[in-house]
């Protein structure tokens, strides 16, 4: 069975390490915050200028001056810091953020990512995504393995305009966990009940399958 959005987030959360500073993108990445493993503390960075993002406010706590990068009202966690946009991207671009998790339209076997623009459709902008993929020490991409029409999103070469080059290290899809290195996708884990053959058939780029591929554990 392909994973649900929540299960993808749960699997990504297993990659978190104690003491990590993490930037979570919009969509499935945001859900990762709900599944931080017990005994681990992470600090969430929101690129509009908040390090230490807390939960959504109660109705009484809502404050127009306190939002996240998705323009949602949020709170500051204990020990948070708030700063300006240049400072925020200094810590991103300077490689101080340990992990960035973001969605994508396509990833290719060179670690290139396309996530912000579909030509001939409306272009809304890249926001902070180009800075994040250029700066993070470690990038995990979450996405469905293939489109609704069955077209693979793990390609030999991205077809859409890029967000960044040679930057994606790991991909968690609804079917598999893969590492990107040496110009190929390495299959690490498969979703429970999903066969290696199905993953092979839905991976257009170069896929390396070494030995028995374990199922993800939750």
């Amino acid at each position: 069975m392909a994973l649900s959005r929540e299960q993808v987030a749960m699997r990504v959360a297993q990659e978190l390490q104690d003491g990590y500073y993490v930037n979570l993108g919009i969509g499935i990445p945001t859900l990762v915050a709900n599944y931080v493993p017990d005994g681990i503390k992470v600090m969430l960075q929101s690129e509009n200028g908040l390090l230490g993002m807390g939960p959504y406010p109660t109705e009484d706590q809502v404050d127009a001056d306190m939002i996240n990068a998705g323009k949602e009202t949020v709170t500051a966690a204990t020990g948070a810091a708030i700063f300006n946009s240049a400072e925020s991207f200094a810590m991103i671009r300077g490689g101080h953020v340990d992990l960035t998790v973001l969605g994508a339209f396509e990833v290719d076997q060179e670690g290139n990512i396309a996530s912000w623009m579909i030509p001939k459709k409306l272009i809304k902008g890249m926001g902070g995504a180009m800075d994040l993929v250029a700066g993070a020490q470690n990038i995990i991409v979450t996405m469905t393995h293939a489109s609704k029409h069955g077209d693979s999103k793990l390609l030999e070469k991205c077809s859409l305009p890029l967000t960044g080059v040679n930057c994606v290290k790991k991909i968690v899809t609804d079917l598999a966990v893969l590492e990107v290195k040496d110009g190929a996708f390495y299959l690490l884990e498969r979703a429970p009940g999903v066969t290696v053959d199905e993953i092979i058939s839905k991976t257009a780029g170069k896929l390396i399958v070494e030995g028995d591929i374990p199922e993800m554990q939750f």
Partner: protein
Amino acid sequence: MAGFDKVVNTYAEAMAGLKDGDTIIAGGFGLCGIPEGLIAEIKRLQTKELTVVSNNCGVDDFGLGILLQDRQIKKIIASYVGENALFEQQLLDGIIDVELTPQGTLAEKMRAGGAGIPGFYTATGYGTPIAEGKEVKEFNGRPYILEESITGEFAIVKAWKADRYGNLVFRHTAMNFNPMAATAGKITVAEVEEIVEPGELEPSQIHTPGIYVNRVIKGDFEKRIERVTTSK
């Protein structure tokens, strides 16, 4: 005004000198921390052919979006413009020109502009459409692109508190681009919630020193929220 007293009492004074074709650098992230009254004054003035530099362009009926209603903006330099149907229409109709710029690069363009640095190299955007036509230089084996800084005839910012000398303090994430924008205007105007006397702000806690600020006006803010999200 006398000496270092930057306080003005009317929006007409606050935006005096703005003319057609000017570049305006605006603070704010979405609708958070935007100089609402200064934007309204620019609409009242009906200044045209403006280049607006801001992370976003407001929504249809609030924030910088209201400057689209009478086609006052010729060009916008922003990182994300997805909240605004009127903007999309004017873009499709070729009325407005947009220069999409990565958010961190945009902040640094303002910061560098205000700091007298004409350009900088960044890895952000290398190998993407925004790198087209830009100089590439390698440092330690990694390619970077040359980005040029930005300054404008005006900068408009929103702060929480100002003293009469123009020292500014921002509140929570309403800080965002405001400190950088404040440095990058030939004339910088701050619209604030509260004006205090010099000496009332703790010097070491000031975010934007008054040297960057030319005019201060007390505003009344609606502080509209784009996405109210709550937990139980």
